[in-house]
């Protein structure tokens, strides 16, 4: 590979790592700060990705595909023709909204119950979303998948430079989400979430409506995951139910948060880059070492190593010492 090739490879890598970082931030809101055990990230991942894709992709030519009736052709609908790809933002917003609504429903039903119900429900929603898009061919072309998902501002730069542009877009979204989450979890709202994570009963005895805060946190995290799914869809530009394999859409994200540092937003982002680096880097290893199973095994080894050496992750949660009164 020449220098340009290496740069392009690294840019492609950074885009995916940054998208994963978005998911790690979402999981941090769920697990890192509130203690909500979401083991069905893949569900929100897929919902976000499919929602944005369906909002923006033109139905394929019936001559080319057997199953073609899907989507709304929203990409043709420029509400305000500002010369900007407005549909991209609509897709992002719709992905966020759909995930938020689904989280509201799941959360409303399960968050009053014992903790394990949420875990089962998230696992259930992941499987339901996958089976829905697999079996309901009218919705998104079934197992053949959605093709030609448009890329954001595609016409603005030449195809060989497009990834540079998209990397900037993804980094801007990631930074905005990072700031939003950081603000929220450092506020009194975040203090209640951490209290719930530490001891639900004590939080309730401190006058907090635990159910309401958990519901808010669950929705907030799911909205972030929805945005991540949308960013992913416009990067890969092809989606099929197989894309949302639990290993790559749930397990690795947990690995990222554990390695980077649960309860620390910088840690979540760092973890995404480290784990994604190991995952993609190991594909160049010779022979059996580039086997996906072996690579997952490597991630497992990494998690164990971090847990043994630095139980809180590379950047563990920081003790919050505030002295607003002095400043």
């Amino acid at each position, binding site marked *: 590979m020449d220098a340009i090739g290496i740069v392009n490879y690294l840019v492609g890598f950074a885009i995916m790592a940054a998208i994963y970082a978005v998911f790690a931030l979402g999981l941090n809101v769920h697990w890192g700060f509130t203690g909500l055990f979401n083991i069905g990230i893949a569900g929100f991942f897929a919902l976000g990705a499919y929602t944005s894709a369906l909002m923006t992709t033109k139905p394929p030519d019936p001559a080319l595909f057997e199953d073609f009736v899907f989507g709304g052709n929203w990409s043709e609908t420029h509400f305000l023709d500002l010369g900007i790809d407005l549909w991209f933002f609509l897709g992002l917003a719709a992905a966020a909204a759909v995930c938020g609504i689904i989280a509201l429903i799941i959360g409303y039903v399960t968050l009053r119950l014992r903790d394990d119900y949420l875990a089962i429900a998230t696992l259930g929603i992941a499987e339901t979303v996958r089976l829905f898009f697999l079996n309901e061919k009218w919705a998104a072309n079934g197992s053949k998948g959605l093709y030609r998902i448009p890329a954001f501002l595609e016409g603005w730069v030449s195809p060989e430079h497009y990834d540079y542009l998209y990397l900037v877009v993804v980094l801007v979204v990631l930074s905005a989400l990072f700031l939003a989450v950081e603000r929220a979890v*450092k506020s009194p709202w975040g203090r209640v979430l951490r209290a719930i994570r530490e001891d639900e009963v004590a939080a309730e005895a401190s*006058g*907090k409506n635990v159910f309401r805060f958990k519901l808010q946190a669950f929705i907030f995290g799911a909205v972030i995951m929805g945005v991540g799914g949308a960013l992913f869809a416009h990067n890969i530009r092809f989606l099929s139910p197989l894309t949302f394999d639990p290993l790559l859409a749930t397990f690795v994200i947990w690995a990222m948060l554990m390695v980077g540092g649960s309860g620390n937003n910088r840690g979540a982002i760092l973890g995404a880059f480290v784990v994604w680096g190991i995952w993609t880097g190991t594909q160049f290893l010779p022979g059996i070492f580039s086997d996906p199973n072996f690579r997952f095994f490597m991630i497992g080894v990494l998690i164990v190593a971090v847990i043994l050496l630095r139980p809180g992750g590379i950047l563990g949660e920081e003790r919050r010492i505030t002295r607003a009164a002095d400043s």
Partner: protein
Amino acid sequence: MEEQPILELRDVVKDFGGVRAVDQCSLRVMPGAVAGLIGPNGAGKTTLFNLVSGAMPPTSGEILFRGRRIDGMRMHQTFELGLVRTFQIPREMKRMTVLENLMLVPAPQLGERPWTSWLIPWMVDRQERRIESQALEVLEFVSLSHLADEYAGNLSGGQKKLLEFARTLMAQPRMVLLDEPGAGVNRTLLRELSAGILRASVERGITFVIIEHDMRLVMALCDPIIVMANGAVIAEGPPSNVQQDPRVLEAYLGSSFSGAA
């Protein structure tokens, strides 16, 4: 006109499977009182607190707080009515600082709405400053100032007890239920604790119900004293009467009482 009780229990029962932890319990606590709740281990004292605070619903019976039914309410709802409780085994937020444990408590807090930190951060900050200085004052009061920035999980047993008590002071309670506040607290701090309770009672008109095994503390601090055994109230009255009540002596001596009397 006779004064209304702030807390009233009518025939309250709590069953755990086959075990009747609270048995036809009826009692009244008058506003401003510092009531002691004593009884041998397993008498049902903590369970009674759990029922009153809303940690669990009673099997049957009625609980009224300021004339209003509260049985079946959740703990955050009774908290909103001004009823705050502590736990026998302290339940601090381990990976939060002592200061944060206290700053959590006041309600309502503007910053507890998720969007306020994005849209009106300066207003949240202003409220935070107020809450923080209140928390620092309370820490001073329970002599834990030097541990303000320590993780609550790192405190000693006695310090955790004081933190529990401090938490109740952060609320603006009408009534505080303290479950063995003195357990594990050293002598000096214990004196300050009872002084603190009396002061809160006199200056802020807070009503207390205190479960305590330390008889010297109870007899010095509390009036009336309510005695429970086997889930039922067996005696009630001023300390001197209760101490001489034969039923009380029997309840204690006839059981595996751990020798605090």
